[in-house]
């Protein structure tokens, strides 16, 4: 069975239902609107470029076992397996990957969301606080007292 999806900029994509259902949001919508599937499902927060990429991901992972429980994703306990295809898939620039994380988050495509977060973590982990601020254009809004407090707490926490 096919499902049609419409991106925020009006482009329509037709995909297999089981592929679209990797998105928790679409899966839930399909349950509610079972009778009315003539109209494309509108995805107001996802542009055509990102949607095409999300669909590409879902096509590849259509047969993966589903993991419903968020607990299972705790990367500290067990990192998700990343295959060669996933590695190729993540070779994109930061802007694209951040758009994809946002798309995966709004569509609730959990494995893609986790893949993206791992990518973001890989960027952040190599950076100093100053570099992180520069990249995301964040202001350093700490008072000296607050900064001291962070350093002071460090004595006994693991962080």
């Amino acid at each position, binding site marked *: 069975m096919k499902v049609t999806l419409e991106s925020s900029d009006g482009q329509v994509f037709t995909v297999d239902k089981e592929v679209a259902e990797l998105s928790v949001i679409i899966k839930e919508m399909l349950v509610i609107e079972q009778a009315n599937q003539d109209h494309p499902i509108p995805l107001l927060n996802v542009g055509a470029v990102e949607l095409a990429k999300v669909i590409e991901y879902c096509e590849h992972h259509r047969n993966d076992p589903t993991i419903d429980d968020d607990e299972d994703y705790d990367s500290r306990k067990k990192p998700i397996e990343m295959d060669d295809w996933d590695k190729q898939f993540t070779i994109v620039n930061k802007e694209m990957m951040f758009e994809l994380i946002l798309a995966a988050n709004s569509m609730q495509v959990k494995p893609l969301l986790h893949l993206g977060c791992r990518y973001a973590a890989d960027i952040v982990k190599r950076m100093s606080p100053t570099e992180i601020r520069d990249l995301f254009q964040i202001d350093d*809004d700490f008072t000296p007292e607050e900064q001291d407090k962070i350093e002071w707490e460090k004595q006994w926490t693991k962080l």
Partner: protein
Amino acid sequence: MPLETPLEIPEIMLLVASCLRDEELAQCLRVSRTWRDLFRPLRWREVRVGHKFREPPFNSSGDYPRCFGPRPVDIYHHRDLILDLTLFGDTAGLDKYNYPNLHKLAIDYTCGTGDSEQKVDLALTEMFPSLIDLRFEKVPVGVTSWITLFAHHHIRILTLCNILVNTDDAPTFWKACAKLENLEMDRVIIQGGRIPADMMFDRMRTLYVWEAKEMDETSLIDLALRCPKLEELILATVVISPDTPPKPINLPIPKECWPHLENLQLECNIQDADLGSILEGVGNLICLDLHSCTMGEQAFRALGLHFSTLVELNLQNCFSATSSMFRDIMCSCPELEVLKANNVFANDVTEGGPWVCQLLRKLKICFLFGSSETYLQLLIFERLSTLVQLECLTLYYLDFEYYDERRILEFRLDFGLSHLESLKQLTTLDFNYPYVPQIGMLEVAWMKTNWQNLTRISGELNDNPNENERVISALSKRGIYREWSE
């Protein structure tokens, strides 16, 4: 234009945080107020505090601080963020604060406290409404703690280590355990003999008892029989010497006593017939550890009921287990991934059908050969060569004097080692022998060519010290390092 970032969404931030190590998170805390506020709860999730030690904990060098962890005032202000709290020693009333989100509390007096006679009595119900996991180590626990534990709504996990429950408190203690799902007792003394007759532990899924004192095998089995929902059971009494005759269990062991049990470890001195009844009474076992038990005909017949499901089996110190039992195991357990066996006579295990344990990843075994059985060496190598998933091979030897005439597996090319070229997954080789195999440079060259994944080797490899050094240095040049035996 600033990069539009998903890192402003808290849920995504927390996912990213879960991919970071602690020191990487520490950098993120220093970025901005927003980032600090997002990551700070993670910093306070787990807190360990120690105050007022008599002796320094963990090491004797004396440079360990007498106090560690945040000051009481800081704990007080962040108490709603703390999920997991460990208090070492008498921690100045920190156990009297209200921690609204605390999941796990451990109180540990191992390192000594200012006043060890004073009993700890927790008003758990009011203080820690969300607590599910409680641990006491070497704490003098008073009866009111057991009463409050009994009244508490959420505690499911209790761990006790080095605890004394006296005769007067015992009935209250058992009542408090009735709602638990998980109970672990290590060196716990429970006085007062048997558990009250009508006591049942209907919710218990996991029961671990290590070095039970003042509880004999019958009382331990009695306790376990009152937990019909068990999924994991470990009963280990004080170290058993092979000379002590096993004691009978003075209890009827009903059929299907633990239908959900998957993981069983018994280090008890019980009779073959009793072990047989237990193995008949359980569901389909996945992991079984009968370290030092007596395995006779009856127990082995019952073990056969689990052949199709067993993934891990440890019979390492089961002195009564015979070679033919190990042959049957290897010919009948298709799911087996870990097997720890003991001395096995080559002429017994080379008989029979093929070994079906093709998923075996870890094997610990000692093959023994009679003086005229050199031809069996090749047959053993051929059998081993079918275990293509093998990652860890330990060859060891239990030192029984009547085996003196026996020989071990000669790990050499002229005895057929080259058959093992199929073991491509092998990473670890352990020779745990009282006498040394004769591994030379030829074998080293062969191993390096055929076992690309091999990185660890332990034990002595050659009884000539010079040759031993040469062999070891040749291996380490190829990234195969020597380690201590298990």
